């Protein structure tokens, strides 16, 4: 199975690899997946307290090229969005952007889950109620 050019590009030049200080109150961390499943994503957002805008996003991913590309793309999309806008990131837009084949859709779902987990971690830290999300059920 050949990868799309966009997946290859993200794999070769991943955007925003790294670690944010998870002890900070304005940093939300999402860790999703499991080593046994062959995919683990950690996605972090740093939020500007006054504007609610995500000013930085970082990821680290253990997984195949599509998983790396999905999380790399997600961090790109997160930056500059408000937290409320970021909640709306949908896995299918990742699938479309990266031309993921059906067997790799779970990579995009994982990226979406990572975004939501990071947002909820941020909300929890800041005394906000955690959002409830529907299961995508594609895993």
């Amino acid at each position, binding site marked *: 199975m050949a990868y799309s050019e966009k997946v290859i590009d993200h*794999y070769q030049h991943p955007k925003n690899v790294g670690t944010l200080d998870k002890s900070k109150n304005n940093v939300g961390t999402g860790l999703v*997946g499991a080593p*046994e499943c*062959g995919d*683990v994503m950690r996605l972090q957002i740093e939020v500007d307290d006054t504007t609610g805008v995500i000013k930085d996003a970082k990821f*680290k991913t*253990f997984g195949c090229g599509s998983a790396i590309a999905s999380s790399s793309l997600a961090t790109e999309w997160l930056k500059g969005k408000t937290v409320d806008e970021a909640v709306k990131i949908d896995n299918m837009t990742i699938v479309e952007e990266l031309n993921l084949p059906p067997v790799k859709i779970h990579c995009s779902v994982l990226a979406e889950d990572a975004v939501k987990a990071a947002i909820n971690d941020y909300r929890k830290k800041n005394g906000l109620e955690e959002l409830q999300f529907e299961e995508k059920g594609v895993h």
Partner: protein
Amino acid sequence: MLQFPIYLDHNATTPCDPRVVEAMIPYFTNSFGNAASRNHSFGWQAEEAVDYAREQVAKLIGADPKEIIFTSGATEGDNLGIKGVFEMYASKGNHIITCNIEHKAVLDTCRHLEKEGAEVTYLNVKPNGLIDLAELEAAIKPTTILIAIMYANNEIGTIMPMREISAIARKHGVLVFSDGVQAVGKIPVDVNKDGIDLMAFTAHKMYGPKGVGALYVRRKNPRVKVTAQIDGGGHERGMRSGTLNVPGIVGFGKACEICMNEMEADTARIIKMRDKLEQSLLKVEESYLNGDKEHRLPHVSNISFKYVEGEGLMMGFNKNIALSSGSACTSASLEPSYVLKALGLGDDLAHSSLRFGLGRYTTDEQIDYTIEQVTNTVNKLRDMSPLWEMFKEGIDLNTIEWAHH
């Protein structure tokens, strides 16, 4: 000068040796006869070529030419050998012993026979990939008719103790079938010394063409018979009907002859490169060799690089290097290699494995390049692996509650 891509997947298939192709060519055009045509020269010529190839094939495994049944490949040989014995010896019993790291062609054949009334024992292998002989002997019952154990494993290259296995089988009057696909042509295999009664093998794993293989069926001490699985013109002494693939068989014979003559020199060269590759890659932190180090084919090395995922790893160099991973992501199933899991590897290590399969045309330059590329990619991916970061921070990954998907 290095040419890309580099092929390091010789357990999947091998290129045809040009000498093999050369031997085959006349049998497509001029000498195209049907080996079963008894009344003209075209047929005689084909028959003669098949007879000669049968001798070449038999010689490589120490068999008599009459004990070679040509097939379409090892999957057919596995099916014919196991199903054929099950049906032929039904009055004697219905129990088959095999092991859990066999090729799918053996495992699925056994599963199929379970539906037909067979009782199958799947022995677990030890962490080194070999079966426990005491467990094997303990599994034998009065109804046991066949022990089916592979000669060497396709993923980790471990070589089973065939002589010890067959000694136990003999003691209890049980037949031994072996899937010899990975071993024949690579290491010395002698059906008499090894005590094997039936063995499937194939041309395309030993620099011959695809689509042709053989089933060895012992004719003496004891005389073994199998029930045919393909009915028709009664070719191959009634055990495998179907017009013989004459060019393929000629190529198979030639490939066997070359292996016979050059095995020693090939092995000496290949094992040196394999060991260099392996030693260099095992220097990478948190890398592990899978399968027994000693009882192993000379051209295979299966290594897990912890905290990186196999398919992601291959993507770093698969434009230039062709090899295989035990990771699930390469298939639609998402389940990592059942062979590696049978060794007791956690899914994480199974997902992190690469199989290197060297061959006759592998060069030192290719190995040096591979060492460099794999090492660099492992390091690069670890820099972006959350698991590697946690490991480096001293976090025990087993204490984390993972969200299982």
